[in-house]
């Protein structure tokens, strides 16, 4: 009962956060001087009267509150308006871009977690110097080299010089680069946590029971580090949402990043607005999911 109440509370908080983001994004787009019609007017010749008509058609002459209400009720129904540049429904554009980004981010996430957990568990249980050195290397790599720099170099080496991969459209290189980068962000704290957990009294109890070392790691050691691991994974996932955007542009993947960049170039406000809202809401949902999973995993967290 208590768990359910806590769950409901967390979901309520998530909805509030999402609503706040929608309002904020909407207002930001309106704070920028000049609206869509001004942008179009600079490109073609539009008389004042024509501009007025367009504003009326687009609903830009109404109050901000009314616009917000109209936009969000339509968005809830899956209607994000029409792209000004392409004269196509934004929802459809999102629907074609989203799967690419999800695939890219998901694969990078898995690669990152496998690398991070693999190295951390190996180092914590064996105490091998070589593995801890590798952990440091991956960690420094992710701090020192931004993904887009590594991306450019990667294209140069693997696509231009060696010719192993196509320059555009292949996911192999970006997934590896973003995956290693994500692993580097979490592997160090994960390792510290696991190393501490190996000295935990209940892990010693598990060994005193004569359990197989593998069982000690999987059943008794890993769950101890799980709350931290979960929090870290949440952070990585959040970081991925931003990280994949630049890489999509660099590697020519037709995802949300490319969509957003093109929209920004063309001042395509409905598209910008919708993309940012989708990304932000995804972040809020990830955050809430991490919290909820944390509750489910650790029986001591009740409220």
């Amino acid at each position, binding site marked *: 009962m208590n768990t359910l109440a806590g769950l409901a509370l967390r979901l309520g908080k998530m909805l509030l956060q999402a609503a706040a983001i929608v309002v904020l994004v909407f207002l930001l787009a309106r704070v920028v001087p000049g609206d869509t019609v001004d942008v179009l007017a600079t490109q073609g010749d539009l008389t004042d009267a024509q501009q007025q008509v367009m504003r009326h058609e687009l609903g830009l002459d109404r109050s901000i509150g009314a616009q917000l209400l109209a936009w969000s009720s339509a968005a809830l129904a899956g209607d994000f308006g029409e792209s000004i540049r392409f004269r196509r429904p934004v929802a459809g554009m999102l629907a074609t871009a989203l799967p690419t980004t999800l695939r890219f981010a998901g694969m990078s996430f898995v690669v990152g977690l496998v690398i991070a957990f693999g190295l951390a568990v190996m180092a914590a249980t064996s105490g091998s110097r070589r593995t801890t050195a590798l952990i440091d290397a991956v960690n420094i790599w992710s701090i020192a080299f931004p993904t887009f720099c590594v991306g450019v170099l990667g294209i140069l080496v693997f696509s231009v010089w060696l010719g192993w991969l196509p320059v555009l459209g292949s996911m192999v290189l970006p997934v590896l680069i973003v995956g290693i980068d994500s692993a580097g962000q979490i592997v160090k704290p994960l390792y510290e946590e696991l190393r501490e957990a190996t000295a935990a*009294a*209940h892990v010693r109890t598990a060994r005193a029971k004569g359990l197989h070392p593998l069982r000690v790691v999987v059943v008794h050691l890993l769950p101890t580090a799980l709350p931290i691991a979960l929090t870290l994974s949440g952070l990585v996932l959040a970081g991925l949402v931003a990280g994949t955007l630049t890489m999509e542009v660099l590697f020519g993947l037709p995802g949300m990043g490319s969509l957003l960049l093109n929209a920004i170039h063309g001042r395509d406000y409905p598209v910008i607005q919708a993309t940012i809202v989708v990304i932000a809401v995804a972040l809020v949902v990830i955050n809430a999911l991490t919290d909820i999973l944390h509750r489910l995993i650790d029986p*001591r967290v009740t409220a």
Partner: protein
Amino acid sequence: MTAAPLLVVRDLSVLAPHGALVRDVAFEVAHGRTLALVGESGSGKSLTALATMGLLPPGLEVGPGTRATFEGAPLALGDEPAMRALRGRRIAMVFQDPMSCLNPFLRIGAQIAEALQRAGLRGATARRQRTLALLGEVELADPAYARRYPHELSGGQQQRVMIAMALAGSPDLLVADEPTSALDTSVQAEVTRLLLRLQDSRGMAMLFITHDLALARTLADEIAVMRTGEIVEAGPAARVLSAPRLAYTERLVSARRILLSAPATERPGSDEPVLAVEGLAVDYPGKGLFGKPLRALAGASFTLARGRTLGLLGESGSGKSTLAAAIVGLRRPAEGRIRLPGCTLTAERPTIPQALRRRCQLVFQNPAGALNPRLTIERLAGEPMRLAGMSRAESRDRVADAIAAVGLDPALLGRYPHQISGGQRQRVCIARALLCEPDLLVCDEAVSALDATVQVQILMLLRRLQQERGFAMLFVGHDPDVVGWIADEVLVMHRGRIVDRCAARDLGADDRHEHTRCLLAARPDRLAA
């Protein structure tokens, strides 16, 4: 009766990178008999136990000259696969702090079933039945216990679960490392009785590690006394305890005896009250969003005069620490008032004004946690001086005086807390409190974390300092001997209420409250009876 030796250990040494922590330890445990390893903390008795299990912490290893046999067969204590084959089947272990020794993420039943599976019991149903049987054997008969998580059990219940888990493989030898030290006195008694009964019914041998000689007397057939990594004296329990050969053993044995022969000298107390508590109640916030607040303390009223000591006696959860915390302004009273020199604490004004805080000082249970590990002893003890705006030179002199007054060598002033012993750390905490020249010293379980010999030293120190300086003292504790020895008057607490109050010398009287008698009956030296 001479039983065949089950475990024989010869020339055991435990090596750390900088030297040996245990040297040339030799002992044997016979079938069905109990060997108690006793000694002060740091004497190497726990390391000896862990080495016997092959569970030494990383960085430590068993020395090359070590020899051991188990049931006559050679046993390589440093060989992990060989030791793992024995653990959980032939040898099992129970540790000190049961809360942290159980996996917080798994239900009790799953943790015991896992040990059964390891012991070779096939089939989930069989394991479930056996789990319930084991829980019944440790007196947790209700099947509901199997579905609980460790944090839903009390400390005593957790330790019973640990014992059930150790019994899963029907071991020949149970290694018990201070299994009752973290428990309340009465729970300690229950767990000790349980261990005795189980050992008897199963014919198990036991290697029992303790710093409590009274407990060793109750449990052990043989006793080996350890000091700085070596066994200095060994023999039949009765002989070692009644006629110790070494002064060190004598000190261990007599530590409790001093407390039992309390010199109930009347001390020159005055009538001037330093502390008056009137109808005090304290609430803890309830669980969840709409939970009702939990009343941890209700209807507490008493006074404490200058130069006198009031003892607060009770088990964990009885509200005694809550009461102490409210008195020094760390907990908001829900009802009632606390009168201190210069101020009165109520629900509306629950904290002591900054300027008056020095007059009310607190000494905690765990001195390691009460001292900042990154400051030297001099800085730590001198903190109150610096707050009072005293010059460095003056502060240094005062600190040196206070350090000498608590019986510490001034050479320790430049050290850090981890470089001194637990008893020395508690002396630093007391020196720090005294430098504030308090009217009231509140000691919350101030000696519970210390060895019996050190306990007595600290208690004597507190008593001497009180006679010299005349502060009033509120002494919180769970050990009737300790509280009865230091206090003039004792309040007995139970479930948030003061259930009994009497002069300390009358604590053992027959007409006391039922709960008081209960606490006194659970003392380790009364268990044998």
